[in-house]
């Protein structure tokens, strides 16, 4: 993989709590969580730019609810 660069990140208590909880739930380091978040953000943006929409689907009812991204 390419050479890495270091960044310092300031988070609020709530943000850090959320990050630590996700890290525990997903059994990933906090860095890995943020890396995945960035990738997902980029993936979503790329599809939105193409004119696509992002939906959640209820597995039981198959009802779709659009995730509103302005």
């Amino acid at each position: 993989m390419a050479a890495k660069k270091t960044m310092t990140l300031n988070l609020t208590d709530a943000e850090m709590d959320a990050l630590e909880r996700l890290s525990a739930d997903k059994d990933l380091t906090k860095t890995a969580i943020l890396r995945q978040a960035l990738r997902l953000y980029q993936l979503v943006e790329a599809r939105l730019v193409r004119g696509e929409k992002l939906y959640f689907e209820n597995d039981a009812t198959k009802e779709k609810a659009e995730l509103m991204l302005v």
Partner: protein
Amino acid sequence: MTATASTVHLLEMATGKLVEADLLDQVEERHLKDWDTQWRPLVAATVRRLVTTNAPMSQWPQSFHWNWRQKIEDMKGILSGASFCIECEGVTQGMMALNVTSARTRLAQQKGQHLVYVEYLEAAPWNRPEHVAQPRFRGIGSILMYAAVARSQAEGFKGRVGLHALPQSHVFYADKCGMTDMGPDPNVQKLHYFEMTVEQAEGFVDGKERS
């Protein structure tokens, strides 16, 4: 960013000897050119042969319509995408495209965890008995799966891998890679979804014998 090469070995069937090859961590233009100029004509010849013998479509090479150029183009600049390929004697012998973000595990014992999803994996047609009477090299699928598992471990996913196997490939993923066959997925053309657990991944890279 150019690809990094790691030395691997393929089994050359004509001689029974191991030959040196490169496992690259990125599919580049020269690999796509090989796909265009060397893979596709051989696949097309197979399909024509099957048509003239009135073979049903279930016998057609099941990846004949895959467009590697489009796939790699779609992945350009996208962080969640990764590609690998194997080069031997200056020719592309196999390719693989991964998604390291969008998929989650489905097996009950590891449900909802991150994994590396194999979007496409293919060996060059001269390495496959459906195209040639005497395949040239063996080991391509295994080495590419090793790369997928290693990438999963590097991401912190502990080797978890998921994929939808082509119907002709169930034996490879179930018996040779030791993955769990979760059966047909109605959302993906009823292809069987296979998943590799942390333990199965450890067994695979350790080269443990399977029954």
